[in-house]
């Protein structure tokens, strides 16, 4: 019990830390709204005069973009580059004198930030859109919504662990610059957050199928949007659980070695 309240405390402190700069919230919300506006305008243009493209309607796309914005703020993670920076600067030593698991501490910190972005950037942006533009209809049955929520949670766990593992590699390499670069490239390409995987060529889809990135936001949204059958949805959940277990196992192993690798730069 105390472990969870401590986790919540770390997240709340991080949340408070991010809410210090009030003007940020306005800029963040505006930025999210702009992104939403541009993306939806592009898709509107592409769908002009067409009922559907490959079985996907504009209504589907609108739902995809909106949910993607909301979920995207929750799955956002800087954990990898944060660890890298802390290793490079030596700040990692102030983390390791705390009687808490380094991983939980890093993840709680990210949670606080994401919760803040969710409430003060993504939600207001969607609200503005709903008020001034249009409201998409979600015709999903409760079972789908429940499956969606579970698989989104799994997706968050997966992406945080990937980031964390990548961050740990900086214990060996001693630098951090490649972490963000690597994550951006792989995530943007294989997660289907920018262009949905529905429109990918077969060969690229097949590569992506073996990677965990599509399980983070794309597959959960596909479940909600009704593009995945309920049977398949359970399969997706099973795959997510498999990836979580697999990542946890690797993480255990890497961490046990990483502790011997730590050297603190700059004295």
């Amino acid at each position, binding site marked *: 019990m105390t472990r969870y309240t*401590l986790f919540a405390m770390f997240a709340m402190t991080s949340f408070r830390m991010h809410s210090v700069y009030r003007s940020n919230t306005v800029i963040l919300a505006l930025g999210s709204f702009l992104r939403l506006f541009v993306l939806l305008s592009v898709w509107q243009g592409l769908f002009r005069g067409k009922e559907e493209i490959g079985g996907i309607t504009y209504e589907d796309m609108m739902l995809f973009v909106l949910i993607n914005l909301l979920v995207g703020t929750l799955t956002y993670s800087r954990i990898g580059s944060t660890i890298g920076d802390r290793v490079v600067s030596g700040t990692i030593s102030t983390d390791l*004198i705390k*009687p808490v698991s380094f991983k939980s501490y890093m993840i709680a910190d990210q949670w606080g930030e994401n919760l803040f972005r969710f409430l003060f950037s993504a939600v207001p942006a969607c609200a503005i859109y709903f008020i001034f533009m249009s409201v998409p209809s979600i015709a999903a049955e409760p079972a789908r919504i429940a499956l969606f929520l579970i698989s989104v949670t799994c997706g968050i766990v997966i992406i945080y662990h990937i980031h964390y593992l990548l961050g740990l590699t900086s214990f060996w390499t001693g630098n951090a610059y490649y972490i963000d670069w690597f994550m951006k490239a792989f995530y943007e390409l294989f997660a289907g957050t920018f262009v949905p995987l529905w429109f990918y060529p077969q060969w690229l889809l097949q590569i992506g199928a073996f990677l965990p990135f599509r399980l983070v936001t794309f597959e959960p949204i596909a479940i909600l949007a009704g593009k995945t059958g309920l049977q398949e949805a359970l399969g997706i959940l099973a795959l997510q659980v498999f990836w979580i277990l697999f990542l946890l196992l690797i993480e255990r192993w890497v961490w046990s070695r990483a502790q011997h690798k730590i*050297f*603190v730069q*700059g*004295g």
Partner: protein
Amino acid sequence: MIEVHDVSKSYRVNRPRREGWLAAVQSLYARAYDWKTAVSGLNFHITEGELVGFIGPNGAGKSTTVKMLSGVLTPTSGRIITNGIEPSRDRKHNAMHIGVVFGQRSQLYWDLPMDDTFRLFQRMYRIDPAVFRRNVDFMVELLEMKGFYRTPIRQLSLGQKMRANLAAALLHDPRILYLDEPTIGLDVIAKTNIRRFLKELNAEKKTTVILTTHDMDDIEEVCERLMMIDDGQIIYDGGLQAFNSQFGGGTMLEVEYKGCNAPLDDPRLQVVAHTGNNVTYQFDRTDISLGEAVSLVSRRHELRDLRLREPELEKTIGMIYTKNKRQRELK
């Protein structure tokens, strides 16, 4: 309380690359490494309530030692036991019983007042609310932090930040407090305050204090025991008095006689300078007390003037550093 057996730490460092683009490309796939030994063959024992100061030139291995003791770094070989725990094996458990301040880094949330970090720490260290309240009051009072208790850390001065970090490290009544250069960059008043605080803390709570420093006044005013580390090895471990008599060359007594100029003949009082009526004696305080020395030199002849010069720690240590460095270079 702290036992260190034959501890060494070495790590791999990239060998500096040769010049030229060919070497640059080569280094991408075949990196040459060197093993650098930070410390080797450390052996010492610290009992509860001791105030110990680590000194040594930059890169001597002081910080590495403190980081191994606090569980941040794992020793390459040897064994460390603090509070009955092996710190690197049981990092989280060990962290519950120690407090650490790294002088050049802060563990407080930058944009928030210290109060927020303190409340987080209360949960993290599972501090009883009454104990927490009492300790916060104790720190705020003794470190004079009332004026900036609710100010965000980023707006504090270096000295204020250091005090806040010190308080944060002590909220859970740690048995051992590690301080890595706690007075670095502080002004004289701030330094004095911190030293006085450490003395009081040690007297009140019997906290074992281990600090590294370059400021000899930290050692003289706070520490009872001095450990000198140079090139990864302990070259002195003992009291300050004994250190002075071993390396400092003893106390100087400059005397100006009235009329007479025949120096005293006593094996314990060495004559190091003699011009006209002025005689400079050097003596070791463990051989002869100051009182006895003064009464001896003034017994036979009348004195016009008398001056006492204690060995200067700073100078003595500077001399040892240079001597060792030269010896290493010769090898």
